[in-house]
């Protein structure tokens, strides 16, 4: 019975990872499709491939943070992780239905925290872990913004005397293949590790692994497969509806935004800090846009990011807390 419950919750965790890749697929392919560097089909395959192979590039520090630095390890049980995942998924569905901004990454953290508090009170949370995550909720899009702005300005300054615009654009189109790949690596490396962390916490809670264990290889591969498939299916769906809704983007702008976001994600993955990849690329695109004029910065986009900061963790926390109540009453 316990094994069935464990397998079921692992399946739910991998489904969360799949849907994370699914709805983030547009972030991975929007810029490279809008600049016509890749056809939509190839862009989807490109992003999904690099989401998957990210496990070869990054270690599992983000996963360790999720499993061991958010909630005290002894608090995790199958029921707590289940309630946390349901809290995160339910919050994502609620916000999607109501059209509210959200972040899947923050929803997962809020969900795990809510379920843990429902089981063992506020003392079950690790303050230093939350401190790190809370600060980088704000910092990661700002870093993306500053780097995007700086990279594009440096590129414009370096090439301002170069008059062969077509040749320049061809060069940046090739570079955008690299930057798009790097962004997908960062996306896969950051987001897949959150699911890995959840599964690691589950396996430790179910005593299949010791408390000091690292992430097993099968967990790494299954999480990256799930997010890669999610990106592939989500990107494919979006390809048919994106069409002319994307404003035509110059390759140098897309490359700068992706490079900035990728650099931010690489750093946070290396440092073991879970961040929102959506907010990071949002910040980078805003930074690139603000090189022209500040009116290019869409206040609606910035407002949605700020509301996501405010609403996501409390919202998923509350839902997970409620979901855990039947388990608490059942003892």
């Amino acid at each position, binding site marked *: 019975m316990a094994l069935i419950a464990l397998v079921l919750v692992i399946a739910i965790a991998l489904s969360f990872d799949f849907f994370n890749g699914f709805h983030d*697929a*547009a*972030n991975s392919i*929007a*810029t490279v499709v*809008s600049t016509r560097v890749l056809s939509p089909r190839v862009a989807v395959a490109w992003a999904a491939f690099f989401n998957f192979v990210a496990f070869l590039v990054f270690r599992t520090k983000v996963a360790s943070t999720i499993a061991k630095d958010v909630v005290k390890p002894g608090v995790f049980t199958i029921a707590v992780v289940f309630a946390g995942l349901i809290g995160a998924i339910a919050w994502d569905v609620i916000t*999607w239905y109501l*059209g509210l901004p959200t972040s899947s990454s923050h929803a997962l953290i809020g969900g795990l925290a809510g379920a843990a508090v429902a089981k063992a009170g506020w003392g079950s949370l690790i303050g*230093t872990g939350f*401190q*790190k995550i*809370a*600060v*980088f909720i*704000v*910092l990661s899009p*700002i*870093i993306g*913004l*500053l780097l995007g*702005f*700086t990279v*594009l300005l440096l590129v414009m300054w370096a090439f301002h005397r170069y008059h062969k615009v077509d040749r320049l654009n061809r060069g940046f189109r090739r570079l955008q293949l690299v930057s798009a790949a790097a962004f997908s690596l960062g996306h896969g490396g950051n987001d897949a590790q959150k699911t890995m962390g959840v599964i690691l916490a589950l396996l430790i809670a179910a005593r299949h692994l010791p408390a000091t264990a690292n992430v097993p290889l099968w967990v790494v591969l299954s999480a990256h497969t799930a997010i890669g498939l999610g990106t592939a299916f989500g990107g494919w769906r*979006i390809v048919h*509806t*994106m069409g002319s*809704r*994307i*404003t*035509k*983007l*110059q390759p*140098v*702008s*897309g490359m700068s*935004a992706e490079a900035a976001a990728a650099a931010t994600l690489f750093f946070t993955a290396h*440092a073991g*800090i879970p961040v929102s990849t*959506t907010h990071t*690329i*949002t910040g980078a*695109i805003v930074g*690139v*846009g*603000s*090189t*022209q*004029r*500040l009116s*290019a*910065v*869409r206040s*609606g*986009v910035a407002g949605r990011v700020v509301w996501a900061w405010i609403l996501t963790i409390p919202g998923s926390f509350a839902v997970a807390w409620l979901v855990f109540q039947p388990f608490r009453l059942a003892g």
Partner: protein
Amino acid sequence: MQTRIGRGVLRRRMGRQALFFMATALLCAALVPAAPASFRWVAWASAGLAAWWAVLFTLEDLLGGGPQEPVTSYPAPAESETPFPPPPPPGGPR
């Protein structure tokens, strides 16, 4: 800062870009005490980079390249064409 032009006065002020980056620098600086000790350098570096751009834009505005608020009416300067159109908002359609 004011400059006499003919019988009018042209007032120079910090532009929106300078104010935006100054606000960003202040926000990053405010995060320094909240950040874990090992990551405070990230908040400082972000604040420093934002402050750098705020200073550069402020200098550009005050030394004549930026927005100006005429006290007497002068023809508005033509908006220069930019080679790079703004990027689309992130995220796809639901």
